[in-house]
């Protein structure tokens, strides 16, 4: 866990308006030029719009998980398989940063109903090593 939420938005202007309508205020813009916000009622958190497509266009958006919070409010999260693959890929790039590997292992342990074929494919796409999860070959 960290203090930031990374968001992928398909429509920059609409997302900016939605954030303002919800009471978020502009944070100083990050170096990559995307939007940044925080909510005055929760100053310890930051929201950042990330550049590029959703997992660089490799992940299947229909696998996202929509969690309803209050009334019509909801948050859409990446599929667990994509999060696991992302962490394993980062672990390989990081060269010894065990936190990414431990995140992947924790997600793998806690997840239910994983699509192992999709998970394996995504791990490979993210240049991760499926063997870290005991997946030695395509299921």
């Amino acid at each position, binding site marked *: *866990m*960290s*203090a*930031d939420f990374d968001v992928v938005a398909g429509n920059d202007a609409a997302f900016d308006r939605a954030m303002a309508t919800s009471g978020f205020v502009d*944070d*100083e813009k*990050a*170096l*990559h030029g995307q939007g*940044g916000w*925080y909510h005055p009622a*929760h*100053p*310890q*958190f*930051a929201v*950042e719009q990330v550049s590029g497509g959703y997992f660089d266009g490799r992940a299947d*958006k*229909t*696998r*996202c*998980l*929509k*969690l*309803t*919070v209050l009334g019509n409010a*909801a*948050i*859409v999260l990446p599929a667990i398989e994509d999060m696991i693959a992302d962490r394993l890929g*980062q672990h390989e*790039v*990081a060269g010894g*940063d*065990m*936190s*990414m590997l*431990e*995140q992947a*292992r*924790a997600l793998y*342990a*806690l997840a*239910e109903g994983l699509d192992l074929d999709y998970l394996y494919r995504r791990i490979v796409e993210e240049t991760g090593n499926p063997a870290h999860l005991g997946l030695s070959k395509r299921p």
Partner: protein
Amino acid sequence: MKTLELTGYLAGVNARKTKLAPDGVVLVVESCRNSGARRTTGKRAVLKRADARAKAASVQPILSNY
């Protein structure tokens, strides 16, 4: 897209975490926390500002390793 209710979803995750706890399968949060070693300059700045805002508002900052 699959839709679930947040409270129920979290309850399920916590139940599974409790079930797995005796086996030590799921490590404590600190073991999984991003070490921050590979953060970009921009991300470090975002997290530093969030930390400063929290302290200024006397709110507990979120440990983020920036």
